[in-house]
């Protein structure tokens, strides 16, 4: 891949001393950043380092408390996203804002201010999609499109405004490796046309590969500027975190042919509940004691539906479809399955795994009232507040949950700390079957390492662990085998020794297992 910086040295955007304060927290503290014409500039940092806040100020959706922005040499005040677009700044968000029931072209039309007819927009969109290698049918319904295709709509919508600077927020977090490659080609083509790109990511390999320069943020401050191609992934990571990240230790599982299957899924199918949910099709899987199985897949391929079915939030038609510790569990609700020894951590922390306005001790009771009823509840169902507070303080210490009050409301915790609490809540039960959906989504590197290690340790102590994740790096780090969920199908598990990114990536993109094996063989 050609990677000579084509920047001319001309400065497009120059930011000096940009600051934003929320309450007592300086989210951005006197940030300096320059972006040249025709460069791909990486913005690196952990969750909460201030990347999003900085970008929102550049895009006019937040007003800075201090600092200057100069654009093409003249000073500007960006007061709204509309103004940002008009001077030539475009943005592709991490979370798309598309209407599923409308077509791609209609969605693009909604974001334009004038009343250009849909047919003109569709034609322009088609031209752009061909020019930049972003295949897309403008008349297809968004609800039918994959996440990668939806991202293309966002990018085309952005390109239609002919921006000079394009801001991309974590663009590859929802893509398969192959889709990401295609995106990189598009970005390189844009760079060769002299457009600048501000690229936000925490995936260091792609930053090394793609970006000309990088600015690293930590706790709201710029800690370093560097040329990513001259750094290693490890050196970039330690710049972001400020210290060495602890390496995960994963000993090979004890090989034992007759190790028992603690979780068995036998032909699980589920019809799509709504127009936009995914049907599950005949899923078979068994997870043995002492083993971690990872389920990879692009978001929205049935992982949420799968989790609900396994957890018992949705029941099956027959008990034998799901077996926990050799007993049929398909007709039991989530409390019944917990009592058989299973524990669950859902993807959504606030509003699913935890009630936002309730205290941590109440949130402990939330998932433990059935299994720990004898300890946590007295006669007549009276809650033993003291016992629960002690148990929740113990979890907080074990998992190193950082908080501002003794027993704060769940919503007052940062995402990573709340996730540590939710995972710790289940781990402290020492469950024999643990099912986790997106264990470290939005969690900073230090906390993520802690959670991953805890899950591996649980499995090595004799439990079966099933991890659903979109983060391939994570799955390769913790899993003993990886399977892939695509459009409601689950592939055969691939032992980690045989799994490659390419092979898993092909499965994520919908190739059938034999093709993937072939590709893996020739790779």
């Amino acid at each position, binding site marked *: 891949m050609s990677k000579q910086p084509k920047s001319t040295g001309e400065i497009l955007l120059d930011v000096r001393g940009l600051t934003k304060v*929320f309450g007592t927290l300086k989210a951005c503290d006197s940030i300096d950043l320059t972006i040249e014409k025709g460069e791909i500039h990486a913005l690196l940092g952990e969750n909460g380092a201030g990347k999003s806040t900085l970008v929102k100020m550049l895009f006019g959706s937040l007003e800075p408390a201090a600092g200057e922005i100069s654009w093409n040499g003249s000073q500007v005040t960006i007061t709204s996203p509309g103004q940002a677009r008009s001077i030539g700044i475009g943005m592709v968000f991490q979370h798309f804002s598309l209407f599923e029931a409308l077509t791609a072209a209609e969605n693009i039309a909604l974001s334009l201010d004038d009343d250009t007819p849909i047919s003109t927009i569709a034609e322009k969109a088609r031209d752009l999609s061909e020019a930049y290698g972003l295949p897309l049918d403008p008349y297809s319904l968004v609800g039918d499109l994959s996440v990668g295709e939806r991202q293309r709509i966002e990018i085309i919508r952005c390109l239609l405004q002919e921006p000079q600077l394009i801001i991309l927020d974590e663009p590859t977090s929802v893509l398969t490796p192959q889709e990401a490659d295609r995106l990189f080609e598009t970005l390189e083509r844009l760079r060769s046309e002299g457009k600048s790109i501000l690229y936000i990511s925490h995936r260091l390999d792609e930053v090394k590969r793609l970006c000309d320069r990088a600015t690293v943020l930590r706790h709201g401050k710029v800690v370093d500027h560097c040329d990513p191609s001259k750094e290693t992934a490890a050196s970039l990571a330690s710049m972001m975190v400020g210290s060495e990240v602890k390496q995960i230790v994963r000993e090979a599982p004890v090989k034992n042919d007759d190790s028992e299957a603690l979780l068995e899924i036998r032909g699980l199918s589920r019809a799509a509940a709504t127009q936009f949910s995914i049907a599950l099709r005949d899923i078979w899987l068994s997870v043995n004691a002492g083993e971690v199985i990872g389920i990879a897949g692009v978001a929205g391929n049935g992982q949420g539906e799968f989790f609900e079915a396994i957890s018992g939030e949705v029941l099956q038609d027959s008990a034998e479809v799901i077996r926990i510790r050799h007993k049929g569990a398909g007709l039991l609700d989530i409390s019944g399955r917990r009592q058989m020894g299973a524990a669950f951590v859902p993807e959504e922390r606030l*509003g699913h795994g935890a009630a936002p*306005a309730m205290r941590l001790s109440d949130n402990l009771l*939330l*998932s433990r*009232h059935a299994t720990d009823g004898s300890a946590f509840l007295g006669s007549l*169902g009276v809650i033993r507040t003291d016992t629960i507070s002690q148990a929740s303080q113990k979890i907080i210490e074990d998992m190193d949950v950082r908080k501002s009050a003794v027993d704060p409301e769940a919503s007052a915790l940062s995402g990573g700390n709340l996730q540590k609490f939710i995972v710790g809540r289940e781990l402290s039960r020492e469950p024999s079957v643990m099912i986790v959906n997106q264990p470290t989504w939005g969690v900073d590197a230090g906390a993520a390492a802690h959670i991953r290690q805890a899950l591996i340790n649980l499995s090595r102590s004799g439990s079966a662990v099933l991890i659903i994740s979109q983060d391939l790096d994570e799955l390769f780090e913790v899993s003993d085998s990886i399977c892939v969920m695509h459009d409601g199908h689950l592939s055969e598990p691939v032992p980690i020794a045989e799994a490659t990114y390419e092979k898993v990536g092909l499965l994520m993109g919908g190739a059938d297992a034999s093709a993937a094996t072939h590709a893996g063989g020739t790779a």
Partner: protein
Amino acid sequence: MMRIELVKRPQHSVLFSALSPFIAFGLTLVAGAILFAILGKNPASALYFYFIDPLTEVWSLHELAIKAAPLILIAVGLSVCFLSNNWNIGAEGQFVMGAVAGSILPVLFPEFQSWIVLPLMMLMGIAGGAAYGAIPAWLKVRFSTNEILSSLMLVYVAQLFLDWLVRGPWRNPEGYNFPETRNFHDYAVLPEILSSSGRAHWGFLFALIAAVVLWFLLSRTLKGFEIKLLGQSPRAGRFAGFSSSKMVFFAFMTAGGLAGLAGISEVAGAIGQLRPVISPGYGFTAIIVAFLGRLNPLGIVAAGLVLALSYLGGEAAQISIGVSDKTARVFQGMLLFFVLASDALIHYQIRITRPQTERTGEVSHGNA
């Protein structure tokens, strides 16, 4: 230019959670004073007759307890509904149907006279209200019907059903064609608490007992946790293993049962027979009571007494200063309005900024 902003608090304020009803009551008094001034009355004396005078005599304290009893009984039941996110607006109908079901024995079987009649009437009143509350619950669970509309419309059904009963099949045969049932016999009348000093009957005791029991249920037990969890965060409630369908029935039937008990207590205690209209809107006023009492049963006892005072004050003000008794409704409406407005202070703080000195900007998107 000065700008007033509402800034979201990081945690909800315990202080304003407690203060909000008092702020609301204060604002209601100020608005009421302005209203009386516009009507050409002396605001100070009008407010005195409204809110102080009824408290100065023993007999009117009894009247206060009579008015407060149904308000408290209904409102503590409604607190279970509202906390679990079930919008039962039909307590008035459940009150009426409880009164009708509880009156079956004394109206249709007047010869059946025994000490057991009164407990049976109370139980039938509870059952009638609960059954009537189960209708919107079933519609919500089975057909996803909006319970606000269905429960509200069932109020009018219940009122017209009562009207038809007392004019038709249940009319007193010795009553000269007046639209009333026969008077309840002695075994069917709810006794007074202190008959020497006034008319207040056991209904007020029922209300206090219900408030204490539900306070304990809500604040100390797993059931209370389930009610609040399903109300705040239904998906987390399902993850906890609680069923929201069962909760819909539980909440509606608890509220309906207590409203039914209030209905039969009112009929067997204060009125002594069924008439076309047996409630001055207790079921609706109880909604205000529930919110003014912060959906906390003990707070609801206090709020029920305040709202009962507004009924008495309305009557007193009509006699002494000659304003319409509709002003009672106006006061109740203002009170609810100000309570809901003051509740904003629990989650938000007011900040006054001057843009030329400080550029803080962007409040609504701030995630402080």
